[in-house]
């Protein structure tokens, strides 16, 4: 079991969460070329090692989180709220 330290709820089993995917994808502007959109939607770095990825605390607070996790050892380095403003609120309340 992977244990994810949710900034709102505390440390929980990963079975409480749903896996999102690569958290580093930036969608291009609406008038960008088909090639750019294809790369953003379909192509992935598929990192072997530490990556930033999204998880949804679907059986908990239902907030989206950014988790820095190794895809080899499953070790987790950091867990933060997805939204930058919420990240600030969590930091200030520490």
């Amino acid at each position: 079991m992977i244990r994810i330290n949710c900034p709102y709820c505390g440390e929980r089993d990963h079975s409480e969460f749903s896996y999102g995917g690569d958290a580093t994808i930036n969608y291009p502007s609406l008038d960008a070329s088909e090639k750019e959109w294809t790369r953003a939607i379909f192509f992935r770095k598929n990192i072997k090692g530490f990556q930033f990825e999204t998880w949804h605390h679907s059986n908990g607070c239902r907030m989206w989180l950014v988790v820095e996790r190794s895809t080899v050892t499953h070790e987790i380095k950091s867990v933060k709220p997805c939204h930058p403003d919420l990240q600030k609120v969590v930091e200030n309340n520490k």
Partner: protein
Amino acid sequence: MTKFNAWNVIKNGLNGQSYWTRQWRDPEPKSSYDVVIIGGGLHGLATAYYLAKNHNIKNVAVLEKGWIGGGNAGRNTTIVRSNYMMPGNHEFYEHSLKLWENLSHELNYNVMFSQRAHVSLFHSPGAKDSVSRIYNIMRLHGTDAELWDLKTLKKKIPHLNYHNSRFPILGAAVQKRAGNARHDSVAWGYARAADTLGVDILQNCEVTGFTRKNGNIESIQTSRGIIKGKKIGFAVAGNTSVLWQMAELGNLPIESHKLQAFVSEAVKPLLDQVVVYGVGGAHFYISQSDKGSMVFGGDLDWYKSYAQRGNLPMVQDVAEAAMAIFPSLGRIRLLRHWAGVMDMTMDGSFFICKTPISNLYLNAGWNYGGFKASPASGWYFADLIANESPHNYVQNHNLERFEKGINIDERGAGPDPKLHG
């Protein structure tokens, strides 16, 4: 290499089994080859075999970082079927099934292919309609497919749980020519047959880098020295992205996920078919091996991973599915379980295609279904490498299909790799 036949079995039986030769050589790497296949799994070995057999290209090396049969060749549930619907896929998998039917003779090696029928249960009128459509499409293309009503199913497999009120069994979609095979035999059989035709199988030979010249890959750096190849093929599903980035080619429409499988202790004959049960997002498939063990599996672990070990929530999911459909398994004990790393693609279909590097060819993205595909995968990948252009069946199985909007999405799940089970 000594052929397997009745005469040799009797002869060796009388002289203490002393005249058998080794199954394949352990050669030192040559400095250059016409074709170098990276990845000594079922697909890589099959490719080397068909290059030599169908295209008379015999100066071929297969590089394997571990040992033959030690990767995903030994991490699967050995199911062979061809119940596919999309153009390209159904022809490809049907050809694969036909190759399976003659594989033991072709390789002079018993792969224990057993056409015991693949029985896919359905649990609602909607599911019946949906599967009827797929199985009718299969029939129109000459693949065998039939629907069993509840009466037939109860007669064939009396010990399923027919009293499940949440997911009542209404019948099954059946492919009778489908079944399973012995995974090790397939790897060893292809390795032995390819070696006999002159292919060098280089084990413990890990690729560490590429040297580029004029846009091509000139040579491959490996743990056993530098090897040159006029043409190079990747067949390393699970780790394709790693090699792809080693060749500085950027991103791929692939994520690596792990899939678990389970083997129980051996029991007396209990199940004559491969049974598949899929409801409410769960997914469960089970068969009985020749040794008597129940072999079964379920879904991915749902998060991206290169680790070849499974996590416990999926063990519980699979055990629950087993109990829901086969309550008689309740007292059976698990012997072992394992996880293999899958190339999960953005539409659930594979790649056999050319790449941005003109002497590099890609075979990847096998999702859940690499085992059954291996003969046809080798056949059409060898064809692509030898003839420089893809066969009709795999003409859309390339990296450009996403930009063109011709995704080959059997499940209709969209660009989320983990959903293409």
